[in-house]
């Protein structure tokens, strides 16, 4: 592909995503929000991800504690481990890991589902019957992601603290009360709020990319796989980029 064609293709892609975003915003505020489909999607995106998020969160806290313990011991700073785990999990590791897992699980599933509906003309069938597929399929999924990903992240953060506590139990050094007191004492709103805002943006990226890739897939069966794959890759890249931008903004305006 020549550089001119690649540039044209990239610009076209940006234009299409902008139009898709505009359509999403317009349809979000339109009368007739699909509450039933929204709650169904929230169940799928949120409730059905609890298992994997709980496991990941627990191992995250557990491993972080075990890995940092020898070094902290050298400096006689074992007592700081709970605070270190809670700050690093809540500020950075929790949101990013949960978002990357959800990009793999949710964005790909949305991409494949809508891609398959596109191939089998179900989206055309909705359009031609006078229903609004953008409102029914896209708005409900993106809003569910925007709400569920932050909730899953909070859940993962809490479980990670339990994971960290479980790791300290191996050494038998700290009581539960002391561990959780130390873990929460160091936390400030400046740690929690930017991180929470970040998870909302991650949720939007996961839902938006999944829907965009699925909705705009080609008509062949091969395109379903491509839509799912492309949704994971693109959503993961978006998550990393959003994280970098939000961290930079937070460092400039909150921590400095």
């Amino acid at each position, binding site marked *: 592909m020549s550089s001119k064609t690649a540039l044209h293709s990239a610009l076209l892609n940006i234009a299409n995503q902008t139009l898709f975003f505009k359509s999403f915003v317009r349809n979000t505020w339109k009368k007739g929000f699909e509450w039933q489909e929204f709650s169904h999607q929230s169940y799928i995106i949120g409730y059905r991800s609890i298992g994997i998020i709980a496991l990941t969160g627990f191992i995250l806290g557990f491993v972080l504690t075990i890995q940092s313990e020898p070094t902290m011991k050298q400096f006689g700073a074992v007592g700081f481990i709970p605070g270190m785990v809670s700050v690093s999990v809540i500020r950075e590791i929790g949101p990013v890991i949960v978002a990357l897992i959800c990009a793999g699980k949710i964005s790909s599933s949305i991409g494949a*589902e809508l891609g*398959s509906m596109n191939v089998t003309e179900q989206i*055309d*069938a909705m*359009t031609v019957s*006078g229903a609004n597929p953008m409102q029914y399929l896209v708005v409900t999924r993106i809003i569910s992601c925007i709400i569920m990903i932050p909730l899953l992240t909070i859940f993962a953060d809490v479980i990670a603290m339990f994971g960290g506590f479980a790791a300290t139990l191996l050494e038998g050094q700290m009581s539960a009360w002391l561990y959780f007191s130390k873990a929460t004492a160091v936390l400030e709103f400046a740690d929690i709020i930017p991180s929470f805002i970040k998870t909302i943006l991650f949720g939007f990226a996961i839902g938006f990319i999944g829907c965009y890739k699925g909705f705009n897939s080609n008509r062949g069966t091969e395109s379903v796989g491509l839509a799912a794959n492309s949704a994971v890759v693109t959503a993961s890249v978006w998550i990393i980029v959003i994280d970098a931008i939000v961290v930079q903004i937070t460092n400039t305006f909150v921590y400095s």
Partner: protein
Amino acid sequence: MENVIEISGLKKSFNGMPILRNINLTVKKGENVVILGKSGEGKSVTIKCISGLLLQDEGTLRVFGEEVKDLDRIALKKLRRRIGFLFQSSALYDSMTVRQNLAFPLKRVAEIKDKAEIERLSREVLESVGLTDAIDKMPSELSGGMRKRMGLARTLVVKPEIMLYDEPTTGLDTITSKEISNLILDMQRKYETSSVIITHDIPCARITADRVLIMSNGEYIAEGTCDELENSPDAFIRSFFK
């Protein structure tokens, strides 16, 4: 009898490649028009233009006297409520049961809120297509013929005035194809619809057609009843019926 569809000089290209070159077609109220043609001739594109899924590049396309490309979103939505479209793949929503597939257009298109009324209309249309027992099944549990019947039921449940059929018997065995063709004719009589039927299936055309059009190179080259076209002096036209 009044014309429900009037198409004149319709042209449509994709990526600079002309698909429809000069389509002229009128469909009268209560008439069944069958379009025959080789694959890739633009038959499906024609009915997608009629339903407003695609917009023509040139020409006029009037449905119930309204120029489709000039309609705004709300007017197009209103128009689509009067048009039913049976897709080649039936396009059943596979995450929903048969009951939910039928309730979907009833709630959103016919805007019926009463659950008992939705249930009554769903059962009535399922009875018409002989699928009453399948009401709680998922689309994946239905056979090819049942899926076509179900697709037809979902389209007819909102009582459209025009039906567009995109290859309704493709992929079905001879007996099931004949059943579906007879069902199309029965439904047309029962619901008094006008229909445009795209097919390669000559027995289906013989059962359903009041008038047949043959499409070649993006335009209609012949028109008549099945018998007239079968006895055409043009060998190419006769070849469709062999």
